[in-house]
């Protein structure tokens, strides 16, 4: 599965998603996200942010329109092709989605286990990644013994351990205090500077102001505003 160089990793053409007849979670959305671009997705609760992310990682199918993710048409993706796509797309959620009965290292290693990465190589990669998020000393701890910020860093490490081409984050700082929010956002921003395409759904406008990246605002399932990145971000740390 390849994505021709220069081709935007995410493209949507008149995409709609309806869970009930006549009621749209997303309505006629068209957009492109360039390689290595960082995009904030914002809007009120129920505006369609999560649905848009779910469509990108093939958790749901569009009711209308076409979605090309890394060159693959998600609407026509067979069930057996979805795992291969997801290995190229890292996802982070507000509720971390960590397994409490596994250690930090095992949680991060999950993404490598599913593709059969040899244990030694997997451990080394997990260690490097945990080091990059400052949690190498906590690798044998269980998630329950970590703070919210630490748990989100573990989730981020799991999303990035496969070096995905796209990173999706759904309210990644929704459960964190302002200090930890900046800590997590800086780590996500660092991934973008390494060339990963990043889409972060958030309703925290202060983050959008702080980092000055492209902002897509959804309203009732439609794109109400597509604001380009500021040339110089206010107070951005990257």
């Amino acid at each position, binding site marked *: 599965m390849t994505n021709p160089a220069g081709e935007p990793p995410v493209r949507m053409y008149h995409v709609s998603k309806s869970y009930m007849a006549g009621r749209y979670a997303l309505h006629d959305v068209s957009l492109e996200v360039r390689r290595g671009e960082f995009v904030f997705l914002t809007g009120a609760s129920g505006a369609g942010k999560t649905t848009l992310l779910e469509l990108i*990682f093939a*958790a749901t199918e569009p009711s209308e329109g076409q979605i090309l993710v890394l060159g693959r048409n998600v609407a026509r993706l067979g*069930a*057996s092709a979805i*795992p*291969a*796509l*997801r*290995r190229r797309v890292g*996802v982070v959620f507000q509720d971390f*989605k*960590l*397994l409490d*009965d596994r250690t930090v290292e095992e949680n991060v290693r*999950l*993404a490598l*286990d*599913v*593709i*059969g*990465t*040899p*244990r030694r190589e997997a451990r080394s990669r997990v260690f490097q990644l945990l080091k990059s998020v400052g949690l190498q000393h906590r690798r044998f701890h269980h998630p329950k013994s970590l703070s919210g910020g630490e748990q989100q860093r573990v989730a981020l490490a*799991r999303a990035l351990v*496969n070096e995905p081409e796209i990173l999706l984050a759904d309210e990644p700082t929704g459960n964190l205090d302002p200090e930890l929010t900046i800590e997590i956002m800086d780590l996500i921003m660092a991934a973008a500077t390494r060339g990963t395409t990043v889409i972060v759904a958030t309703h925290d406008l202060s983050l959008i102001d702080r980092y000055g990246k492209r902002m897509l605002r959804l309203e009732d399932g439609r794109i109400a505003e597509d604001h380009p990145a500021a040339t110089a971000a206010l107070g951005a740390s990257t």
Partner: protein
Amino acid sequence: MSRVLVLIRVMFANALRGVRQASATSLLAVLTIAVVLVLVGSASLLVENMSGILDDFGAELQLTAYLEDDLSDSDLASLTDSVAAAPGVAGVELVTKEAALERFERIAGGAELLVGLDDNPLPASVEIELQPDARNAASLETLRASLDGLPGIDELAHGEEWIGGYMRAVSLIRGGAWGIGLVLGLAALLIVANTIRLAFYARRDELDILALVGASRTFVRVPFLLEGTLQGVLGGLVALVIVFGAYELLLPQVRYGLELLVGRAELHFFSASESAALVGAGAGLGLLGAMTALAGWRSES
């Protein structure tokens, strides 16, 4: 290590982890399979032993061809050979007039009953032992037809009612065992499938996270199939131990009762291959249960 081997190792590790973590549901599945296999195993053991006893009875089923009086020794010998060559015959024994008289005297306790008779009134006969697969009405009819044409045979005597009763008893017991086994097996399958489905729902988060990080359907499903198979093997072993324990415990009483009732008590436990088959049936049940449970599941991630 190749990626495939790593994947196989991880899937086995996940299966063992699943058994350990869902210990309550795993125990339930193991016990369910064990209970069913104890019932099926006990029924099979009973049927097998009863079939053995019936087979012993069957070996005693025989036809008797009473012969005409004026046959020479060479006629008797050739007639005996012809009868032995007839379809369904396992063996023959010629009982001469003299041997019949001796037998009668032995049974009757003396020759007083025959005093006054000039000649030995008892006919010579050929006692015919049937092959096991010929102990049925159709084979008996074929044999009867082929013997009827032989010169020198005066009358054929056989216990058709006895043979009919024997056949009915055998088919009733075997059919009943199959029916009970089938019903119990289906019930077990449903219970095991639902037990494994419970384990599945208990680990829904894990499955959704695996799907999220790009685990293939095989990677997600194989550990559950292994888990079901492992539970089945454990259930089979538990059942084997219980059936063996019950067999050893009840053997003296059953043997005594059978000796009183039918005069014989040649009982035996499962052979090694039959024991393996019982455990294998457990493995099959566990695997089928897991497959049934998985058939209704789809990841929501």
